[in-house]
């Protein structure tokens, strides 16, 4: 089954779901409407012809200055057909939210928590959407592109005294 046939089969299932399809260096990536992600994924997993049983990877990307700003990327693997498929979902800057895939693949649980922790994307229907990497009292989402990069100003001889005065030294 070649890439055109995969897209055709997906279109036959839900004609309005596919927004875009690209092929780059032999890998097929399909952009899907966020509202229909749950049905599309269920179809990709359960369809006999396609059979993408395994969610390899779930991650998020921040394209600052572009609309939709965020993108959630799913990499699927079909063991039977030895084929990989990339599914993308674009999400708006204001309150990005998409349906959780934990009902289809339990492995999505931790990866969605990671995307929530670092990018602030809400996964609707997730059983426990909490921070997984940063401390619980952390403010903001550190992998967003508008978060400052450095933790502290780099000290040289001319600014060391100023930094030192501001630094919170611990006491006994």
């Amino acid at each position, binding site marked *: 089954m070649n890439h055109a046939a995969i897209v055709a089969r997906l279109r036959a299932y839900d004609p309005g779901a596919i927004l875009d399809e690209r092929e780059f260096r032999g890998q097929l990536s399909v952009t899907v409407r966020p509202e229909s992600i749950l049905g599309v994924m269920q179809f990709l997993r359960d369809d006999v012809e396609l059979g993408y049983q395994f969610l390899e990877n779930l991650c998020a990307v921040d394209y600052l200055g572009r609309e939709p700003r965020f993108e959630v990327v799913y990499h699927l693997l079909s063991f039977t057909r030895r084929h990989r498929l990339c599914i993308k979902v674009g999400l708006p800057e204001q309150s990005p939210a998409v349906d959780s895939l934990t009902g289809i693949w339990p492995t999505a649980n931790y990866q969605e928590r990671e995307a929530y922790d670092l990018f602030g994307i809400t996964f609707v229907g997730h059983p426990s959407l909490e921070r997984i990497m940063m*401390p619980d009292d952390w403010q903001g989402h550190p992998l967003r592109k508008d978060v400052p990069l*450095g933790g502290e100003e780099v000290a040289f001889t001319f600014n060391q005294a100023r930094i030192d005065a501001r*630094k919170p030294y*611990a006491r006994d």
Partner: protein
Amino acid sequence: MGLEQKAGDLGIVTTSLETVVNWSRSNAMWPLLFGLACCAIEMMGSQSANYDLSRFGMEINRASPRQADLMIVAGRVSRKMAPVVRRLYDQMSDPKWVIAMGDCAACGGVFNNYAIVQGVDEVIPVDVYVAGCPPRPEALIDGIVQLHAKVHRMKLDGSIRQPVRV
């Protein structure tokens, strides 16, 4: 060797209490069994046969903070780990000392970002900083010798005797 000759047949050595206390503290200073990153490998290396930290009475790493005198912060401290480090430090019994081993523990090192504490001295007070990425065992041993020199200068009330500069 020299002690018997000095003491003669009396079997008595006279000294100040301060010296005896500092002598015993510095010669059986047990580190906490605690490594955070790659610096811990060098710390283990300095304790193994080639460098042999037991020459300084430090061959025994205690797995319990209650029994440890010295915390060697070997590696970068992430913001999530910082409360744990502070808690371990608080659980150690007085007197206690801290060596910040390596650039990451001393100032954040190359990790100038949101996740890493920029120097463990933001979390716990540090006595000796050892530079290096990671420091060789010789450097760590030098830091420990420096710390021993500091302990020898301690007064009984805990303050540090400043060295006399001529």
